[in-house]
């Protein structure tokens, strides 16, 4: 019996009259990689922000290892440290060198000493192959390098799950590969991940389950094989077709 890391239970969210999430439910198990995809505006980013309570939902519940994040008693700040988040625009701390971007969390939030935090950060940088770049400021790094630092910043917190919000869609095409490679590596190490992405090659390689969202609801779920061979819903077929036209078919795996 595998343990549930995240449970999303009937989550609703509206901005004024705009219903963005309309009853989303799913579970994420230890070591699982979930890929969420769907048209722009379908509510994917909102869903990720709800999961770590950067945006509290109007209705429904999110549980982290059985503990509700909605519980008024819960220390949200503490719980959030268990949920990593990788942003589309990296959002690195502009005044901190790469290594300090990664070590500040372990130091301030996990209470490690400066030296311990530095060691943790260095190991995380090694994982994303950025250990030679620790002493550069974000502005001195390429987009792909910045995103890898963003991933290292999450890894260093040793979270229960990492949420990725379109981590490669702000990158120039030639920089996407290095970031996906790092994500593949950590997925294979057994990191629990929820990834919003349209990189179907990545999904095919490591997704345990794919979730197709449209207009704030989950339209269809299934394995990558299911989606690539015989998706059921009209909307999924349509959307996958559009992606194929855009990116080409996801025939070749990008494993090294």
């Amino acid at each position: 019996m595998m343990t549930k890391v995240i449970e999303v239970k009937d989550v609703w969210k509206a901005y004024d009259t705009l219903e963005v999430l309309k009853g989303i439910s799913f579970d994420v198990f230890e070591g699982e990689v979930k890929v969420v995809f769907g048209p722009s505006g379908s509510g994917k980013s909102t869903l990720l922000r709800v999961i770590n309570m950067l945006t509290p939902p109007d209705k429904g519940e999110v549980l982290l290892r059985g503990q509700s994040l909605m519980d008024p008693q819960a220390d949200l700040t503490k719980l959030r440290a268990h949920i990593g988040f990788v942003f589309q625009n990296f959002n690195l701390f502009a005044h901190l060198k790469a290594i300090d971007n990664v070590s500040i969390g372990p130091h301030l939030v996990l209470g490690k000493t400066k030296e311990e935090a530095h060691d943790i950060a260095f190991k995380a940088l090694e994982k994303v192959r950025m250990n030679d770049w620790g002493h550069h400021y974000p502005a001195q790094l390429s987009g792909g390098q910045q995103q890898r630092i963003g991933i290292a910043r999450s890894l260093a917190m040793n979270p229960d799950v990492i949420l990725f919000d379109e981590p490669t869609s702000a990158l120039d095409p030639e920089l996407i590969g290095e970031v996906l490679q790092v994500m593949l590596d950590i997925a294979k190490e057994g990191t629990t991940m929820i990834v919003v992405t349209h990189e179907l090659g990545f999904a095919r390689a490591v997704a345990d389950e794919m979730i197709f969202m449209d207009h704030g609801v989950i339209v269809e779920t299934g394995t990558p094989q299911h989606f690539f061979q015989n998706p059921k819903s009209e909307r999924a077929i349509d959307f996958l077709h559009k992606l194929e036209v855009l990116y080409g078919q996801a025939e070749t795996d990008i494993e090294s």
Partner: protein
Amino acid sequence: MRPTSPNQLIGMLQINRIVEYLPDLWNGLSMTMGLYLFALFLGLGLGIVLAIGRHYGGPIVSRISTAYIEFMRGTPLLAQILAITTLPLALNLDTSWRIILQDIFGTPRITVDITILLCAITLGLNSGAYQAEYFRGSMASISGGQTLAAKSIGMTKRQEIRHIALPQSLRRAIPAWSNEAVYLPKYTTVAYFVGVPDLFSAAKLAAGRTFQSLTVYSLVAVIFLVLITAISWILSRIYNRVKIPGI
């Protein structure tokens, strides 16, 4: 009395008599610098607090900070100084308090009385309102994404302000803040109105005594120009030292 040749002009300005009142100007300058530094740093602390209050505070704190900032910026410094230095008299308080400091040669001669103290405080209270706006501007320019990122790794609001927002916004504020640091020495001259013996007061006395007012005031103008150039230079050095790429 129209000057016809450079020699006559020099004769009229009587530049050789400058040595007579130079020591007085020097003493005035130390008072001016004292007022300036006191007000600059009081204003710095107050400005940061007000900016945080206005930018991060709840509705009440933010309104109070805003009201303070707008009122201080919307009224003349002279009115503020006249009002505050009149307070002890108006309230019948004891005004005999004073301390005597040594000058750089060890002679006890710099007196700080209640008026000088209140004047310095008012300059700081006034400067704080202006400094707050420079800091608030730079706080507003920090990207919201970094706030989300700080939250997502579990930082508290306080940690985010202290470790993410302030280090960036304070650095970013330096060029604009330098304006205030350069305006302030000029505005310390308002102390003259309440009888504080600053550089300008010393100049006015010297002008009256020597009947060389054009020379004296021109000399004071030059002193301020040099002072302000030096302050800008120092601040740009500091900025270049703490500057970080991309901020």
